[in-house]
């Protein structure tokens, strides 16, 4: 199915957010996630089923002022 990850459209076979993170190589990384503009806590990622058209945000710690 087609979803959007960090603003870019991509095809994925992952059925859950947890599986998508593994697919993208974020399995052991310190990241936070949101789907369709709503925060998804780490503990809820494996239970969150993705649907076509979902907008996924994956963020990491960065420099800020």
């Amino acid at each position: 199915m087609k979803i959007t990850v960090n603003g870019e459209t991509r095809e994925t076979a992952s059925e859950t957010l947890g599986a998508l993170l593994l697919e993208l190589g974020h399995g052991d990384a310190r990241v936070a996630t949101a789907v369709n503009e709503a925060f998804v806590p780490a503990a809820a990622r494996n239970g969150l089923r993705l649907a076509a058209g979902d907008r996924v945000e994956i963020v990491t710690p960065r420099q800020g002022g």
Partner: protein
Amino acid sequence: MPVFYGTKVASPLMLGTAQYPSPAVLAESFRRSGAGVATVSVRREAGGERAGQAFWRLIAGLGVRVLPNTAGCHSAREAVTTAQMARELFETDWIKLEVIGNADTLQPDPFGLVEAARILVAEGFKVFPYMTEDLVLADRLLAAGCEVLMPWGAPIGTGLGLLNPYGLRSLRAHFPDVPMVIDAGLGLPSQAAAAMEMGFDAVLLNTAVAKAGDPAAMAEGFAKALEAGRLARGADPMPPRDMAAPSTPVIGKAFL
């Protein structure tokens, strides 16, 4: 030293982590500044570079408290989601709340700010709102549950200093017991000293240090200015007067 939400921090200097020429310069600037708080952000990872993980290790090594921000958010909803992600990433309920209302001045949107603050306080966040020096906005943010206020000195990144001393003094006088931080717009240590002389508890800055020719030296300069301003405030400064008054006694002067 200032106390925010019951936590004493090591220094009245809160220092940003963006725009430094290198991670080594960032670390050295923090060391010489003695800053007790580092502001950080959350951003999308570009490609597979894992820059976020390297940055996390750098920040963890500084030994300072982190204050994540919601920089770049233009709505309350966006800011709330960003804050929730930041809380999980940085393992802190402190959040520097930015809701930008104008793209040119990066002026806070007071309405979105109050709306987001109310939601975040209800969710257990300890909110540090980046705000204008507006007295009524301050009142609303305190009513929403904020226990710290962060009025701007000038627009972010301008280095213009304290543009509205009257408004800032008025804010300080109306809420004498609320911890207040001047956030944004400072360019020189003398401006930070002036903020402390006015009675502010701390300053938050980034560009003035990161974009200086020698960031670490500038960081130390700010730290010393803050200490000078804090001492002056506590020393009960003399009132200014219009007419001259001799400091040397007149009595005993030789009659020539």
